[in-house]
Each structure stands twice: as C-alpha cells, then as structure tokens.
C-alpha cells in the first residue's frame, strides 16, 4: 500500500516560506545589504517566475520570499538613530510616554516618543525618535517617590539629561542591551533625576493605545483595592503582565521551580482566556461568525493590553486560526499555524527572531505538537486529565530544555512536578482573575467579597512555590551548552519524532552518529585549544571582579563586585561564569571586605562548587562578610589565610605571591581603613606577571615600593578604582606597568581621577577601563599579551 509522508515539511508550504524569509532576515543581519539590491533581486525573481510559469515557480517564489526577508531586514536593521548628533550631550527632549511605564523601587522607566529636541543655548528642533528614559528618585526619602509615580502613558514630558547610546554586550557572552533596545526601535537612552523631568500636559488625543493605557490603570487600581498585597501583585503579573510588581524574592522562587514562564504572560494565558471564552460562547445564543469576531477582537485587544510579546502574539494568532478553522469547518494543524504566526510576527517585528522569548515559545509549541501524542499514549494507565497534563509539560520541557539552559543557565529537576501541580492552580487563578477584574472595575465592594477565595488560592500558590524553591536541588546552575550541542539536540529530537525526514531510514543510527560526532568534535576542540593564561577583568559596574584561567584549566575568581539594591552576583557574575563554561571554581579570593568587592561573591559561593576561599581577616566584620563566611563554613570550603611571604602554586605553571598584608604592619598602615587591608597578589607565569592590588591606598603603596623584587610587572590592576589617593608616582615607577586596568563604573567618588590617569599615561602604560570598554580580557601566549575589550573606546 502506498503511504503518505508524515515529514514535517511536506504539505506545509508555509514552513518553506518561513524558512526562506528567516534565511533572508538572518542574512541581512550578518551582511548588511542595501535595500535597493533587494528590490532589484525581487524584481528579477518575479520576472523569472513569470517567464518560467509552471516549471520552476516554487523555487523562484521561495527565492522571492528570501530576498524579501533580506529587504525587510535591511529596512529594519539599517535604521539610523536620528538623534546621533546629540549623543553624549546634555539636551532637553520633549515627548509622549508610550507603552506601560515600569515603576521599580528607586526609579521609573519610560519610553518617550520624542517630538522635539533642544540643546542648551540653541533653538528647539523637531525630531522623531524613541528614547528610553530612566527617572531616578534622586532622593533617599520615599515620600518623594510620588513625584515620579504620577507619570502615565500619554503624558507629555520634558526631560533634561545626557543622551547616551546603549552599549552592546559588556561582558563576554553577556546581555546585548543595545540589540535588545534596537529590537524595540529605541536607539538612545537618558537618565534623569528628580526635577529634571517635567510634566507638561496630557495628550488628550484618543487612540487604541491611550484607551488600553486607561484600562490598564483602572485594572491596576481595581486589583490593588479588591485583592492587594503580594496576592494582588501576583494577579497583576498574571493578568496584566506587570511582572515587576512582584517581590524579587517571589520571582526568584518561580524561576527556581521552573515556573517563570507562567509569570510572564504567555501562550498558556491565552489558552486560559480562549477556554473561558469558548465556555461562555457555547452557552450564548451567538451564531457562527459573531463569536469568532468577538473572540478575535478580545484576544487582539488583550494582546495589545499586555504588550504583545512574541509568546502572546504567537498564541493569539494560533487561537484565531484554530477558532476560524472551526467556524469554516477546516481543521487547523498546530505546526502549520505556528508557522503562520511566526511569519506574521517576523513581518511586523523582524528583530524578534533573535529573542529568546520568541525562540522558546515556538520551540515549546513545536515540541508539544510532535511529542504530546506519543507521550500521552505511553501514559494510558493514568486518568486522561493527568496524563495529558504530564504530556504537555514533558513535551514542552523537552523542546525548551537546551535553549533554557543556554539562556538562563539553570536546570530545574522538579519543574515537571511543580508545573503539574501549579499550572492548573495558576489557570484557576487566571480565569478567576479575569472574571473578577471587570466586576471590580464596576462594583468594587462586590468584587472584594468574591475575591476572597481567589486571594486564598493566590496565597496557596505562593506558599507552594516558596516551598518548592527550598527543596534540595530545586535549581542547579549549569553552563551554557555549545551552539553545536543545542543544534544536535534539536536534530535528534526531530529525527526521533514521527515527522522525521523520510530520507533518514535508521533514526537511531543517525542519532548515534550525530552525538558521536558532537562528542568527538568537542574533544578535538578541547585538545586544539591554545594553552594560555587568560585574565578577564569583568565589568560589574562600580566594583572589582577578575577571573583567571590558568593554562591547565584552573579557575580563580578575585572579588565579585556588588552594589546595594542590585544583585550583581546573580545578574552579572554567575551568568558570566556559566555562559563562559565555568561551573566550578578552584579558588575564590576576597581582596577585602567592602561591598563592591564581596557583594557579588555570595551567590557564587552559594551556588557553585568552590574548592578554597582566600582572605585576610578584616578588622571589622560587617554583615555581608559574616554571611559570606557562614556560607563558606556551611559548604565546607577550605579557608586559606593569605599573608606576606606566601607563594601559592595554582596548577603547574602559575604562582601567586602574596605581597601584603603583613601581620606586623597591617594595623598601623590600615588605621581602621579596610581598603588598606586589601590583599596584594603578584601573579607569576612564565616571564610575565600581573599585580592585583585590591583597594590599597598610598600608605600601603609606600610600604610596597621598596619591597617589590620583580621589575617586570606587565599588567597592573590599578588600585582602588583609579582613586586619586592610590597609584602614587614612586609606586608606579617601581613596578613600571605596561598596561593598567581600572575596574570602575558609575560612581559618586570621582573614580577614576584624572591625575591617576595622567600618572599612568606619563609612564607609558596603556589604560583600560571597564566603564568605557566593558570587560577587558587578556591572553598571554608566545611571550606576548593579547588584550581584547568588549566595547570600543569612545
């Protein structure tokens, strides 16, 4: 008997079109193409298609789509920032707040649709651009917060500040802020504090955007009144997408349990709404097209209301295709519908192709479409509701697993279980919330009573999540797999599915070969890798953080940055380590106990296996330090007390000479200033050396000047973020560094001082700065330092 093919790409021409379009987009990202050439190419392909008529129409149409993708990409990515001439200058911009203002504890973030620009002393010009404005309270007094909380979507503001261009990744494999904003059409940012933001008027013109903003505000107030507290915040995140209203600790608990996807509005939520709508419509007298149009409109408005992130847009399109198919008597095919959705989204926002949210959403859907049925069939012995829930969770996780690890560096072994229990619970919460929201906006008192069970449910969910997050092995930090490993995983997944390509006759053999090739390839790459010393001065903002990788693969971390009110360890240091393939450390060194050096170390010591911890005990023990030591004790990490005269051998070729502190003098030199208790370490490798100085100041430098034996210090970690009171002339003369690295970020102390910079330059040292160049990475190979910075100096 002749059998039809089940191959994924057969009978789904849209997938071919999508692939061609994406290829065009990606091509235009990597090779900036001129739009004109694209137009010419499209005309050519169209003409050829006309000439050949039936013979080669499909490939020609595909190439037409491919070139169209190029054109779309060229038009999108080729956009120039109209405000470029003002970058780095202090200007005043005037514009309307668009989108949802994001209000955090110490700042509010707006996207301003700018209409006019004025440079001080010059005339006002009209301009059209989007600028991201960070409005900082500027006052420690929380009462002043009301000052900036007042601004809403549609307000016209005048903001004065220095216009900046966002930067690309500041650390190796770090977050590309510039690309992230560019994807939203934003090419410049401005920070302003307090009264530098002036309210002018309300934009009264009516638009869908203003209507949605009004609705969002009303809903926000209503939820505060009827539910309130952490439960209200959870509902706001679930219904309105205001994830930032939830306490960071709670968000953390959701992430640790693999439930982060329910906190950001996703396809799941649209599914809940569709279920609710279908239930309501099936009990209404509405016929045929009316419910469909109503449903489509409600979904569209809701999508816009919550900001239409890729997963939401995807789910809305797929839901409408599904319901329209029902109305027209056509059966929708999930994979094909997802292809249509991807095409539509990428037509409107081509940048989404590079976003993890987009990729994860489509991987989840594709994987559910392929594996839901086979998994459920294996679980026949369970009640069908349970087995289908397990099948959905498992198949979605299967599809998103490698990319989740790649992007978020965490494995959550319990997530199948927690999803199983909490996803239905959150579904109830969401649907209940949708019913209560309109009631609360009209009869607040009635809603308050009705909300009581919902509040209990919310509290249960929060408690359960908190409990699950505390389970052992709730979240295991994991290094990012290589891109080829991710690709092999997805190829294997497709080959093992029912819709595998027909030319693969022996799927298991092919999979084994693929995996074997991957293992062999990574082994070869490991062997081929040059053995060299690598030192990375990580950009942690204001603060120190240095990673050393020895030729034989030992890893040393000196300090971990830290900033009050921010979690530098979780947000910067851990991702940096894990994304660069480091899942354990041989040695963690604390230079001294100040927060901008140890604040970010805590999560590192907490989450990664660490062999040893090196310190010199501080004079005064502060809470952050005590917490650090408690973690070190609890995890049984060896504590090494460093002292002058010691030499630690790390691996076979690297030596750490401790130059300071010396017990005898430290008290009199420090005089209660912890900076002068900093470890001073000379790293020696082959014929070169690097001097790490922590935050030592002039007194310690004078002490060291006469005692430094080695004359060939090539690299100096400039002491104390380039402070005026460090890097004294005799000290610099004694060590004569070829290059100095200043670990510094935005600060109020005036670091680095211009005198320090001059002193370094006068001695011929090249100066590298984290604040201007991002992370600085150095390799010593063939008796030569190769230095690479993440950003180009301005």
């Amino acid at each position: 008997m002749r059998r039809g093919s089940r191959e994924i790409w057969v009978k789904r021409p849209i997938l071919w079109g999508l692939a061609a379009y994406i290829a065009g987009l990606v091509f235009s990202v990597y090779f900036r193409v001129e739009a004109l050439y694209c137009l010419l190419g499209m005309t050519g392909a169209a003409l050829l298609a006309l000439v050949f008529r039936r013979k080669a129409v499909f490939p020609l149409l595909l190439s037409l789509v491919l070139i169209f993708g190029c054109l779309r990409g060229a038009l999108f990515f080729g956009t120039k920032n109209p405000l470029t001439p003002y970058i780095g200058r202090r200007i005043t911009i005037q514009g309307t707040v668009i989108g949802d203002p994001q209000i955090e504890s110490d700042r509010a973030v707006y996207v301003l649709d700018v209409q006019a620009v004025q440079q001080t002393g010059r005339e006002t010009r009209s301009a059209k651009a989007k600028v991201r404005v960070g409005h900082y309270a500027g006052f420690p007094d929380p009462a002043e917060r009301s000052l900036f909380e007042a601004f809403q979507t549609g307000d016209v503001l005048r903001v004065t500040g220095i216009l900046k261009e966002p930067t690309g990744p500041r650390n190796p494999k770090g977050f590309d802020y510039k690309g992230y904003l560019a994807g939203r059409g934003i090419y410049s940012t401005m920070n302003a504090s307090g009264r530098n933001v002036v309210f002018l008027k309300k934009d009264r013109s009516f638009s869908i955007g203003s209507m949605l903003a009004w609705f969002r505000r009303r809903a926000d107030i209503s939820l505060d009144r009827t539910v309130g507290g952490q439960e209200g915040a959870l509902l706001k995140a679930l219904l309105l997408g205001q994830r930032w209203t939830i306490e960071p600790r709670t968000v953390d608990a959701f992430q640790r349990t693999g439930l982060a996807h329910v906190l950001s509005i996703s396809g799941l939520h649209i599914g809940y709404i569709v279920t609710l709508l279908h239930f309501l419509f099936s009990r209404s007298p509405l016929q045929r097209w009316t419910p469909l149009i109503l449903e489509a409109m409600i979904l569209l408005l809701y999508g816009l209301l919550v900001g239409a992130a890729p997963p939401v847009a995807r789910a809305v399109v797929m839901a409408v295709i599904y319901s329209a198919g029902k109305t027209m008597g056509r059966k929708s095919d999930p994979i094909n519908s997802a292809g249509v959705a991807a095409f539509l989204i990428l037509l409107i926002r081509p940048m989404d192709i590079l976003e993890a949210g987009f990729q994860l959403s489509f991987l989840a859907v594709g994987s559910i479409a392929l594996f839901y049925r086979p998994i459920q069939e294996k679980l026949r012995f369970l009640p069908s509701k349970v087995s289908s829930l397990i099948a959905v969770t498992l198949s979605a996780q299967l599809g998103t697993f490698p990319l989740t690890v790649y992007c978020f560096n965490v494995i959550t072994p319990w997530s199948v279980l927690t999803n199983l229990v909490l996803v239905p619970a959150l579904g109830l919460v969401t649907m209940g919330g949708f019913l209560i929201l309109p009631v609360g906006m009209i009869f607040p008192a009635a809603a308050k009573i009705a909300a009581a069970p919902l509040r209990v449910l919310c509290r249960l969910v929060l408690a359960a999540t908190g409990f699950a997050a505390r389970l052992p092995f709730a979240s295991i930090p994991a290094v990012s797999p290589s891109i080829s490993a991710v690709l092999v995983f997805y190829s294997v997944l497709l080959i093992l599915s029912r819709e595998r390509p027909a030319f693969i006759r022996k799927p298991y053999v092919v999979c084994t070969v693929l995996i074997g090739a991957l293992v062999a390839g990574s082994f070869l790459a490991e062997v081929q890798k040059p053995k060299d010393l690598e030192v990375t001065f990580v950009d942690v903002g204001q603060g120190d953080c240095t990673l050393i990788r020895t030729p034989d693969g030992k890893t040393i971390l000196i300090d971990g940055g830290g900033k009050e009110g921010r979690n530098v360890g979780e947000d910067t240091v851990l991702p940096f380590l894990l994304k660069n393939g480091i899942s354990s450390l041989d040695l963690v060194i604390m230079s001294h106990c100040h927060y901008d050096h140890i604040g970010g170390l805590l999560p590192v010591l907490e989450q990664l296996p660490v062999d040893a911890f090196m310190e010199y005990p501080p004079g005064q023990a502060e809470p952050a330090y005590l917490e650090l030591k408690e973690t070190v004790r609890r995890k049984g990490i060896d504590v090494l007390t460093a002292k002058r005269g010691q030499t630690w051998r790390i691996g076979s070729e690297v030596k750490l000479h401790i130059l300071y502190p010396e017990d005898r003098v430290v008290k009199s030199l420090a005089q209660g200033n912890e900076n002068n208790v900093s470890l001073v370490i000379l790293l020696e490798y082959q014929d070169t050396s690097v001097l790490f100085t922590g935050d030592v100041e002039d007194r310690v430098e004078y002490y060291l000047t006469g005692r430094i034996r080695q004359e060939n210090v090539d690299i100096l970690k400039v002491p104390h973020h380039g402070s005026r009171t460090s890097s004294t002339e005799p000290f610099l003369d004694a060590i004569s560094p070829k290059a100095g690295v200043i670990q510094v970020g935005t600060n109020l102390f005036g670091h680095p001082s211009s005198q320090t910079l001059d002193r370094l330059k006068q001695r011929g040292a090249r100066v590298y700065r984290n604040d201007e160049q991002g992370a600085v990475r150095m390799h010593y190979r063939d008796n030569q330092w190769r230095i690479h910075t993440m950003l180009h100096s301005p």
Partner: protein
Amino acid sequence: MNWRPLLDAVLDMIYPRMDCILCGQPLEKDAVQGICSSCLEFLPFIREPRCSVCGKPLEETDRTEETERRYCPDCRRYPHDFDQALSVFEFSLSIRELIHRYKYGKEFSLSRTFGFFLSELLQESGWQTDEIVPVPLHKNRLRSRGFNQSALLGDSISGHLGIPCMDQVLIRNVDTKTQTGFNRQQRADNLKNAFIVKNPGPIRGRNILLIDDVYTTGATADSCSRVLRQAGAKGIHVLTIATGRNV
C-alpha cells in the same frame, strides 16, 4: 473575477490537509481532494448500469442493450418532474458518515471534496447547464444549522466550472419536517407547496442544475422542479452526492 480559488489557495496554506478525511492516515503528496489512494479505491462510485432517469445504480443482471434506456423499478411506476438526475456515490456506510460529518459535524470544508466529484460528474454527463440552483433550507433551519449544505456544494461547483450559482431564486417557505423515516407518499405530502420561486427572472428559458445532498425517492427534487418549471425553466437536471439502491 472569481476570488474563490485564490481564497481557497490561501486557506489551504493556512489549513493544509495533512491526513485523509476518511481513514486519518497521512496523505500522499498527490492525493485527490484529501482522500488517500487506498480510500479512493474503495469509494462506492456509481457506474453503469444505472437508471436513465434518477441515476440510481442497477443490478448487473438487468440485461438490456447498452444503448437502450434503463429504468429502476420506481421510475417505471412514477414519473418525475425533472429531466434527469445523477448521483456520485452510492449511499454506503462510509458516505453516509461523511455526509453526516458535513451536515452536522460542521466540517464545511468537505463541500470542496464533494463539489469536486460533483463537478467531475457534471462534466461527464454532458448536460446543458446555465445556472445552478441549490435546494434551499427554510430560514429557521438555516439559522439553527448555520449554513445550507446544498448552497455550499453549488458554490463549490461554481468555483470549479464557472457556472453561476443562484441561491436566492428558490425559497423554502414552509418549515417542513425532516424527510427521514417517511415513506414515498408521506415524503411527497410533507413537501407540498413547500417551495416557491421568488425571483423568476434569471431562470426563464434557462437550463437549471438542481443541487442537493442526498436523493432518496426524488420527492424534494420533484417538488422543486415543479415550481421551477412553472416559473419557466427550460431544462432541469438534478445532481446529488449520494443515492440509495432501489430493488
């Protein structure tokens, strides 16, 4: 311009036919109208010999010459008001289920599959056809079902062959009971005066093709044909998806 084929092509892109509409197995690339080759082989197409009037299949034992007209027992006894009728399929279990899915299971897209086979048969028949008139539903029935199954078939044939389909000419002005379970006499009585021609202009002197889903005794077709004739239609042919066997 007829937008139907273009619309269908776009919809086919959004809703590709993945599996056979009968057996659910994946379709071959070159499958006919969503039916896989093995199911297509087993479809009960009506072939010769069949009744020269109502198109019902006849037993092979009926030994008459090829060229001669052949009649089923019913058509020998009762005359019909239409000129000739044809059906694509014999009303087998599988066809019955398919029609049921079409009418009550809201699988409107099956109208395209049926429309394709109806068009093929119409071309074979060699009938002169100027206009297509679907058997109408009463407006109450239309509201409860949501669509007229015959009108969709008419649209589909119209899309294939370019013959205009007129679904506002013939109107059912009595909400008749369903014909199922009635005998010949009851069927005819049930339909008495059920149809009127609202707008006789476009049918006067024209050759009409009447479309319905199932042909049983021909009561519906006769009832419609009568009023169409009165309104001045020249020739009247009837095309249906399926018909039963008459013994």
